[in-house]
């Protein structure tokens, strides 16, 4: 990966609840990856989705149908809670916009990051 951070653990810390990640495969040529819902991000930043996209044209935004989104997310064992999915319509034909996360976006959302190499020796002082 071009940024070199892919084979280490990334830990995000925040003093407010983190916006959910959705692990979605958006095209056959790519594997699943983590996305935010654009509407979640815009709401947290108190912007309209349109203003958000104009302000951050460098962030990748993709669209999937609500039904496809629901299908993929509901397969996850981490989304076994009805409450986390009840706002989505399993047969929805509308498009949902997903936005990729970047370090810039994390800091806009008030999260701070730590990186850890999984196999590093444990240092006991």
């Amino acid at each position, binding site marked *: *990966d071009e940024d070199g*951070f*892919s*084979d*280490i*653990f*990334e*830990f*995000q*810390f*925040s*003093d*407010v*609840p*983190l916006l*959910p*990640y959705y*692990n979605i495969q958006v095209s056959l040529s790519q*594997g*699943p*990856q*983590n996305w935010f819902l654009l509407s979640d991000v815009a709401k947290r930043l108190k912007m309209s989705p349109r203003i958000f996209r104009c302000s951050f044209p460098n962030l990748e935004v993709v669209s999937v149908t609500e039904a496809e989104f629901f299908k993929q997310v509901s397969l*996850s*064992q*981490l989304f*076994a*809670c009805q*409450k*986390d999915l009840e706002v989505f319509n399993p047969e929805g034909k509308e498009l949902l916009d997903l936005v990729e996360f970047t370090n810039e976006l994390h800091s806009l959302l008030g*999260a*701070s990051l*730590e990186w*850890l190499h*999984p196999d590093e020796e*444990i*240092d*006991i*002082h």
Partner: protein
Amino acid sequence: HYYRFDEHVTLCLEKQSTSGKEKSKHVLQQKYVRCSVRAQIRHLRRVLCYRLELALQYVQILFDNEVLPDHLTLKQLWLSRWFGKPAPLHLNYSVKEKRR
């Protein structure tokens, strides 16, 4: 397979309640945490110790008053203790006092 494409879990990490003057010491300011499902308790402990500026032997991570083993992955933890519940998963940490 890279960790950043993994599913992630969200946690809420709070200090186990203690009394007295130690109460406000070593409290994590940013208590909401997210990381890969493949991270283990030992990884979380290391990051937590780094944040709290404490050595590793002083910090333990607990779920429901039970100390969690270092090699448990967060996916195993979620599925065994939190399946069907909403995010975030609530964990505690305890700080053992240094001997003077």
